[in-house]
């Protein structure tokens, strides 16, 4: 068991950055995210027997984390809905002050999405899972994941679109966008 627990420890350590990134994107709050990660690690350690050897450990951990998150959400549903409502109105009042959605605005926009859509978008669009893997993690049909991702993208695009006309405006905004476009195409 000793060598097992040591290799499990190493594997978990290596996946913590990914788990934290997933948790933050899901709940939008680093402290809550780290609590989710801690709970996930504890559950994974104690239920290792339910992990099927040879399957994707990362996907298994993501599954535990999202299940933990959503059961917590169900407990706090009322509170969460209130918060999302106020965030939505904030966004409507202040669409991208710099002529585009900056990171803070984008995070806020992400948090306005229904949690299931947000989750699907993060799994597929940021964490790099396939639709099939994302469906397994969220225990729903592949078609459901696809439709959640599409709805999430449409809604975010709408929010980004609100800020877009200003992108065609004067120099500072344009320069920022050119810099961003050039910078990102260099990356890819």
């Amino acid at each position, binding site marked *: 068991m000793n060598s097992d627990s040591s290799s499990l420890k190493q594997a978990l350590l290596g996946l*913590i950055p990914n788990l934290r990134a997933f948790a933050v994107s899901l709940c939008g709050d680093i402290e809550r995210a780290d609590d989710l990660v801690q709970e996930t690690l504890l559950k994974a350690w104690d239920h290792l027997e339910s992990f099927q050897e040879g399957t994707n450990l990362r996907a298994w951990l993501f599954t535990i984390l999202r299940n933990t998150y959503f059961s917590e959400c169900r407990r706090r549903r009322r509170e969460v809905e209130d918060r999302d409502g106020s965030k939505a109105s904030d966004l409507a009042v202040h669409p991208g002050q710099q002529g585009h959605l900056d990171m803070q605005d984008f995070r806020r926009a992400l948090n306005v999405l229904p949690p299931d859509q947000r989750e699907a978008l993060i799994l597929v669009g940021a964490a790099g899972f396939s639709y099939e893997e994302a469906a397994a993690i969220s225990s729903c049909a592949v078609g459901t994941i696809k439709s959640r991702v599409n709805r999430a993208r*449409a809604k975010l695009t709408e929010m980004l679109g609100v800020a877009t006309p200003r992108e065609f405006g004067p120099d500072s905004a344009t320069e920022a966008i050119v810099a961003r476009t050039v910078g990102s195409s260099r990356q890819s």
Partner: protein
Amino acid sequence: MAEKDGSTHLSAPAAAEPEASQEASQQEQRKQSQQSMGQNKPYLAHSKDDREREGGMDPPRPSDLCGAPRGMLDRSLQAQLGRQLRAIFSDVAQEPVPERFIKLLEALEAREKRR
């Protein structure tokens, strides 16, 4: 799926990304050349142009961005969206593992060894 235009693109975000960002940079180039042509215009004239592009009251000039198909604008937005989404994720994913988790795993391992 009865989504807006561009939904086929939406279903394959990773694959379509390079194409979209290329188009985005083409748009930027066009914008730049437009801007350099209109350099003598005061600030206000720019924003009036912007409104015209939005409202589409005047027939669009060939060089005008208004002439770009709606789908192209959507794709550049999609590209931006994808970048920001991945940035939010990778910002955190690149942080070092916090001390609390290292200690937690060491404690779990130690507990295992005592068994």
